[in-house]
């Protein structure tokens, strides 16, 4: 076994091209567990913590680029205006885990329980991939996350980061688990309401082979808001039935299974509850932002 410590992205990519089986390691919150428990013995590890290109985030022409090596602690500290992302980052592990874990790690591991992933899906993010001697390529999140721990990352590529168009409007991330820390989600949900395109986007974690969107619920929610005149007037009342119907449709989009963390039935129910709450929070946030009080 060998560990390589490249100092630049170019050096790391050249290494990956020469040694496609080399496994990148960043925060180690997944990979070190496999090493410690003798479950995996890669011949070569590449420490990607030293690559400055992966540690940056920047706003660029209405988009945010988030480097694969930005830790959850830094997201909480540096990007407060991205509410759902910060809420997801704060729900990751513990302070010690958040100081090491990265969004790139969530993407690379590709677990449907990765806390940042429903947020990226609701942002309609794309994943930026780099390899030596070629331009970066980008894939929409759903073409990158292919199944449980299965991604479209090629052996000679590294994840550079993720990028999305910055939306205007409220949103939230919520997660079900047995305590407030150190929890692998039983079910999680991100809702983003985009004022500019008048759309509502909902993504689900831990209730399917990969992250799932709920297109039927999204269309229904946007239509109901339009019918109520809510897109133009955030104070326009939206019938309470709307949230219930929305929750039921989100739950219908889930593809949960029974496992050690919960049953399929519980997960589906959780999706309905999380979706109803998230929609109400979003509508209440819009009301408050335009001077009204919460409806209840």
């Amino acid at each position, binding site marked *: *076994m*060998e*560990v390589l*410590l490249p100092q630049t992205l170019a050096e790391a990519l050249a290494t990956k091209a020469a040694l496609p089986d080399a496994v990148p*390691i960043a*925060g*180690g*919150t997944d990979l*070190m*567990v496999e*090493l*410690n*428990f003798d479950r995996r*013995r890669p011949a070569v*590890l590449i*420490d990607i*913590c030293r690559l400055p290109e992966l540690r940056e985030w920047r706003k660029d022409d209405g988009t945010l680029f988030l480097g694969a090596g930005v830790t959850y*602690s830094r997201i909480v500290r540096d990007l407060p205006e991205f509410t759902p992302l910060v809420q997801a980052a704060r729900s990751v*592990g*513990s*302070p*010690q*885990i958040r*100081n*090491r874990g990265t969004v790139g790690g969530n993407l690379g591991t590709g677990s449907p329980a990765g806390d940042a992933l429903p947020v990226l899906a609701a942002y309609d993010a794309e994943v930026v991939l780099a390899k030596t001697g070629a331009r970066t390529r980008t894939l929409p999140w759903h073409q990158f996350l292919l199944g449980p721990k299965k991604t479209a990352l090629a052996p000679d590529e590294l994840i550079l980061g993720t990028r999305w168009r910055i939306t205007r409007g409220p949103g939230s991330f919520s997660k079900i688990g047995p305590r*407030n*820390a*150190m929890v692998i989600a039983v079910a999680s949900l991100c809702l983003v309401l985009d004022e500019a395109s008048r759309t509502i986007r909902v993504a689900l974690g831990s209730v399917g082979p990969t992250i799932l969107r709920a297109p039927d619920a999204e269309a229904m929610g946007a239509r109901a808001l339009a019918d109520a005149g809510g897109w133009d007037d955030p104070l326009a009342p939206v019938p309470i039935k709307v949230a219930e119907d929305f929750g039921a449709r989100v739950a219908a989009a889930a593809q949960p299974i029974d496992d050690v963390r919960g049953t399929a039935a519980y997960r589906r129910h959780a999706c309905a509850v999380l979706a109803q709450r998230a929609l109400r929070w979003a509508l209440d946030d819009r009301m408050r932002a335009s001077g009204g009080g919460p409806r209840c």
Partner: protein
Amino acid sequence: MLIRTQVNGEWKTAEVWPGASLLYMLREHLGLPGSKNACEQGECGSCSVWLDGELVCACLVLAAQAHGREVRTVEGLATPEALHPVQEAFLETGAVQCGFCTPGLIVAVTHLLAQVPAPTDATIREALSGNLCRCTGYAKILDAVHLAADRMRTTPR
């Protein structure tokens, strides 16, 4: 592979197996068994140390990732003359039972108090959410944090 790391202010070198964790290097190569080896999966916080000033689980850091970097462990807190106020507070309040979680908690509490000199219970619980005490001595641990906070505010080190 040869790893060179600054540990508690002194540069140390160790020849370690490339897949070894920072925790293994500290305990088995550098003679620093204060950081405890318990869950080996980042759940329990018993191996909490500082890596370049950040609180981390040493079991989740590859030793090679600490090459050229600065590590501070629980052994770096006391002086030959006196324990650190956080250590004193744990002893006085009875926050130490079996003692296995204690070094990790001492490090996490010291880190917390450096940032938040007068934390509320909620802040303490959140800051210590990655440190498990299987004796469930959490009430005394909270007492210890408050006592240490009071003393460190009145007599800063």
